[in-house]
C-alpha cells in the first residue's frame, strides 16, 4: 500500500534540487537520511537545498521525524521547500520544520526567493 520513495538530485550551480516522489514514512527514512550521509550525498559546493514535494502525496509522523533529522543536519544550507500542499505545510509548521526551511509555492519562486 505504501508508495516507495524515490529521491533524485539535480544540481544547478550552487543549488541542489532534491526531488521527492512517493510516501515519506518510517520505511522511507533511511533513504532520506542518505541525503546527508554521503552515499548519495550532496555536492561540496552546494549552498542552497531545494526540496521538491510536488510528487509527495503522503507524509506521516514517522516520516516527518526523518525530515527533522535531515533539516537539523543540513542547517548550514539555505533550505527551501516548494510545492507542498497546504495541510502538509501546516504540518511542517506544527513540528517546527519552519525553523529550518522556508516554503514556496513553486520551484521558480523557491529559486528566486
Amino acid at each position, binding site marked *: 500500500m*505504501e508508495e516507495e520513495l524515490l529521491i533524485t538530485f539535480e544540481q544547478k550551480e550552487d543549488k541542489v534540487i532534491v526531488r521527492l516522489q512517493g510516501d515519506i514514512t518510517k520505511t522511507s527514512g533511511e533513504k532520506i537520511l542518505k541525503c546527508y550521509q554521503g552515499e548519495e550525498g550532496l555536492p561540496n559546493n552546494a549552498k542552497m537545498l531545494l526540496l521538491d514535494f510536488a510528487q509527495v502525496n503522503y507524509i506521516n509522523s*514517522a516520516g516527518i521525524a526523518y525530515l527533522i533529522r535531515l533539516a537539523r543536519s543540513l542547517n548550514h544550507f539555505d533550505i527551501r521547500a516548494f510545492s507542498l500542499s497546504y495541510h502538509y505545510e501546516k504540518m511542517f509548521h506544527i513540528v517546527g520544520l519552519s525553523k529550518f526551511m522556508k516554503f514556496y509555492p513553486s520551484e521558480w519562486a523557491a529559486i528566486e526567493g
Partner: protein
Amino acid sequence: MEAIQLLDMTVNSIYGEEKKVLKELDQKLAPYFFKKNDCEEFKIALAEVCINAIEHGNEEKAEKPVHVSVKLKGNLIESTVCDTGKGSRLQPVQDTDRGWGLKLIQNFVDSWTTYQTDSSESLFCVVISKQLQSSMMEV
C-alpha cells in the same frame, strides 16, 4: 439528526494499512461539499491514530485487527479506532525522533479522547472529531 456511517472496516497491523482507510474515506466524502483542507487535516489525524494502534496497540503483529469506524452527523465527523492493546500510550514528543503523532492529532482535530473496554476482548479505542466547514461558502 441521524449520524451517517461512512466507514466500518478492519485493517491488519501493518504499516501502510492506514492508507487503505484514508482511500476509503476519500471516496465516502466525495459526494459531500466540505472544505478540502478540513478533510485532509482530519485524514492526517486519523492516519496517526491508526499508526498508533498498529505500532503501539497491536505491536505490529500483522494478524491483530485495527477496527476503524467513521460517522458523519451534519458537519461533525467522528472516528473511533480500536486495537487489542491496553493502556494509554499516546505520548507527547520525547525527542526529535518520534512522538509527533499526538501533536498532529491535537492540532488537526477539535477533540480526542481514549477509552478502554472491559468486555471479554479488551479493546483500547481513540475517538477523534472535527467540525468540517462547507466548501459552498467559499464562493
